[in-house]
């Protein structure tokens, strides 16, 4: 049973449709990877799930109920967290303040969640008083994910979390994302580095021209000769 699902989504930014019957979904305790060539509508599909663009057709469900009418803020309250590709931390605020902002909608004690984030990303605990703008790219990404986790989301959506990262830093981040899955969170990510991402994926979606061309477990997709030839370079 999918926790978050976008079914048969059609829509775009006002002009021609970018999504043409796209269906993607993620279940709790699973990693769903959305892959595909440039301009296939991967990021647009994520934005559609988050309510940042209007859908002409199709529906988005969270935990079984239709959330099509919810604003992005409403979806955050409902348990969705989104980490944009760029501009995903408050650069002038400290690491700790960034995490506090993540928990902005929560009332009561947040030190437990902050401790969990620090356990997951120990480097953030070290740099908690430093401004986020002074962090390295990899650390910034960790902070961005940590900020999103502070809402205690049911589903964590990541838009190209490893963009511009060195392979070592990338491996480490995937390792952390696996740990987040272990905690029972549904993870959905758009990835440029499709081969590595599909290797950790429980479910994979290959988008082409706004529609879902291939669906299956990460392993199946990696083994599919057509997918390999078209998107993974043989």
């Amino acid at each position, binding site marked *: 049973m999918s926790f978050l699902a976008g079914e048969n989504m059609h829509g775009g930014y006002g002009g021609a449709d970018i999504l043409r019957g796209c269906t993607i979904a993620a279940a709790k305790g699973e990693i769903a990877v959305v892959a595909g060539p440039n301009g296939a509508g991967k990021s647009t599909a994520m934005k559609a799930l988050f309510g940042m663009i209007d859908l002409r057709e199709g529906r988005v469900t969270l935990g079984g109920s239709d959330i099509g009418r919810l604003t992005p*803020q409403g979806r955050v309250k409902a348990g969705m967290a989104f980490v944009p590709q760029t*501009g995903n931390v*408050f650069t*002038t*605020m400290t690491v700790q*303040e960034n995490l506090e902002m993540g928990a*902005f909608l929560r009332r009561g004690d947040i030190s437990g969640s902050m401790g969990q984030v620090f356990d997951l990303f120990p480097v953030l605990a070290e740099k908690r008083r430093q401004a986020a703008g002074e962090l390295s790219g990899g650390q910034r990404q960790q902070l961005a994910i940590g900020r999103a986790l502070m809402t205690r989301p049911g589903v964590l959506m990541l838009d190209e979390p490893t963009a511009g990262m060195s392979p070592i830093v990338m491996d480490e981040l995937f390792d952390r994302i696996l740990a987040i899955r272990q905690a029972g969170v549904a993870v959905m990510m758009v990835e440029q580095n499709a081969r590595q991402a599909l290797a950790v994926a429980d479910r994979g979606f290959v988008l082409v021209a706004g529609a879902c061309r291939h669906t299956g477990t990460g392993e199946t997709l990696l083994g599919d000769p057509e997918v390999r030839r078209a998107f993974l370079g043989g």
Partner: protein
Amino acid sequence: MLTDIANAFVLLANFVLIPAAAYGAQLALGALGITLLFGILRFANVAHGDLMAFGAMATILATWQLQAWGIGIAPLPTALLALPIGVLAAIAASLAVDRSVFRYYRRRRSSPIAMAIASVGVMFVMNGLIRMVIGPDDRAFGDGARFLVSAGAFKRATGLGEGLSIRVSQVLTLAAAAVAVAALFWLLQRTRVGKSMRAYSDNEDLARLSGVDPERTVLVTWVIAAGLAAIAGTLYGLDKSFQPFTYFQLLLPMFAAAIVGGIGQPVGAIAGAFLVAFSEVALTYPYRKFLRYLLPEELQPDGLVQLLSTDYKFAVSFVILVAVLIWRPTGLFRGRLL
């Protein structure tokens, strides 16, 4: 010799340091409002000088009423008692303006320049309204004790030739500004609403994703900026005098202060305000008497040794502004680009 140095220092303190500090504090309160509004609403509020005048006007009207009733807090000026009325009036006016003008442009996601130009219109309307209500002339509203330290008393106490006078309004200005700034920084650094304002100013989209309510943030920002503007306007009126057009003229030094400090940076606005104020006062002060105390007779100047006539004091802020925009457009504290 030692008395000469003491005299020179007292002279400088009396005519440059103290007045510039008070003036700097007044500019700082206005510049803080400008910089906060720019950080959150993303436009330069040209109507800020008139918002100060509006707040001051409401304070004056309330002061007159209190004076008529015979209510006062002597030796402090009655205006201090009336200040909350001015603050509330300025907040009400700015919220009304935001609802009727700026919200429309915000919803249309208009460019910052369109909103700045809309604020020019707001400025004219507010300007006219103020003149209709209180008139264009000088309005006196200060009462209570005038001096904390008078020049005569200072001379008698120290035996120096130069007198140092400290006006109540100057001390009041510095004290009120210190309290207002401390409260503002406490709010921005320690409270939930303050942090959400900083987050919104830093990264609007991410702040929305974190659940920050944009309209509420805008509202809080107006309340703070208008409150500071009313305090600044009243203090300026008490220290100098209240005349509507002088507030319009304050716009340039206040913008210079906000930009020099780095727009969107509260600390920068304060530093910029004092930089502008001290430059303005120091460059227009005639140093003849000061140098006479310090230099041997054969070196003493004949002229006034005034670098710039006071008529040109606004040129000082203008030059600072242009210099900063050319050589360091993000300001001293790395703010945003206008």
